[in-house]
């Protein structure tokens, strides 16, 4: 069946994420979305649009996912967002709260009433074959932004390719959390190395669910 997973990254620009994102297992009650993102938005690279509202998300899913389009109702549906930090509140670099996360906003929208939304509060990491989970980067500010090398004037130093040089942007071993939202509320959360599912086993609930 088409439309179980929705991969919004470009296969040529992001081959690693596209490849492993396309292998994520779904079912007819769970739609997964793989995309670039941050606490404020998801990038729909396919349609050139940033998704910041329930309406925009609903539109995109209706276009890209047969499972979503043909659902009988919202009840029992789960959306898993494999996009960096979309389950993390927007905050300044000292960690002071600015706004609710995108996932929580989507969850409180009319379009996603009754839908379970699972989203990471740290970066989502992939290798060429798998999703590894949500983990902190080795060097990051308390709001999750990377720390960068800077020159004497405080400007970020770029490498020869023009990319900003991170102090250490690699994956750390510190897991984030997969947060589960429903009707605008966080209902539960799981450790970052959990494989998100709409039907977690008793073992996953015992070993991966946060108390």
């Amino acid at each position, binding site marked *: 069946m088409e439309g179980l997973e929705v991969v919004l990254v470009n296969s040529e620009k992001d081959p690693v994420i596209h490849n492993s994102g396309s292998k994520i297992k779904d079912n007819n009650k769970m739609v997964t979305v793989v995309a670039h993102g941050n606490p404020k938005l998801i990038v729909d690279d396919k349609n050139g649009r940033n998704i910041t509202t329930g309406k925009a998300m609903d539109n995109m899913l209706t276009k890209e996912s047969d499972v979503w389009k043909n659902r009988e109702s919202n009840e029992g549906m789960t959306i898993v967002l494999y996009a960096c930090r979309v389950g993390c509140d927007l905050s300044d670099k000292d960690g002071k709260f600015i706004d609710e996360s995108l996932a929580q906003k989507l969850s409180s929208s009319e379009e996603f009433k009754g839908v379970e939304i699972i989203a990471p509060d740290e970066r989502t990491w992939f290798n060429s074959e798998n999703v590894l989970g949500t983990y902190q980067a080795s060097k990051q500010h308390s709001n999750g932004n990377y720390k960068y090398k800077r020159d004497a004037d405080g400007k970020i130093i770029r490498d020869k390719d023009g*990319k900003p040089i991170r102090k250490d942007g690699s994956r750390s071993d510190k897991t984030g959390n997969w947060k589960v939202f429903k009707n605008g509320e966080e209902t539960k959360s799981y450790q970052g190395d959990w494989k998100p599912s709409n039907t977690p086993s008793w073992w996953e609930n015992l070993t991966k669910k946060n108390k």
Partner: protein
Amino acid sequence: MKNLYLVILLFNFLLLTNCNKNQKKSISTNQIDSSNSADLVNLAINYGDTDAYDKLSIEYMDSPYSDFLEISRQMANKHEYKAAYMDVFYCLTNYYQNKDENLFKELDNNQKNMAIKYLELAAKKGEVNSLELLSKFYAEGKDLTRNIELSKNLLKKRDSILGNVSN
């Protein structure tokens, strides 16, 4: 006893396989795949390579976005790339770190005018996010003079670009 050895052997094999899997190079969704590394800024600004520019834009999503301003401004002015016009707006307003209602809060008049100018240029080029945001600003009438007709027209233009979107 033989069975015990076999079990231990199997356990070690599984452990090693799992370790190898996790040791493979990993990237996060906002990190560009640099296997085809090239001078992205050079490709973008001097050759108008939009793929190179898009990669940089994603890479900068997690940074203080203001540092991307000069690159996006040059890409917009030199190559009239619609996404770059929008990025100039994002950089000036610190969009990723701000609520929409506070985007102009810390800007002086010159900066605000420049941000709106680039937002309008992006909209003229048919950049869908700019059409949506500009429509919202015209509807609210807080940062731009209220103009409901224009607001509706901007959304119509966005919808025609996206195809059958009704909100």
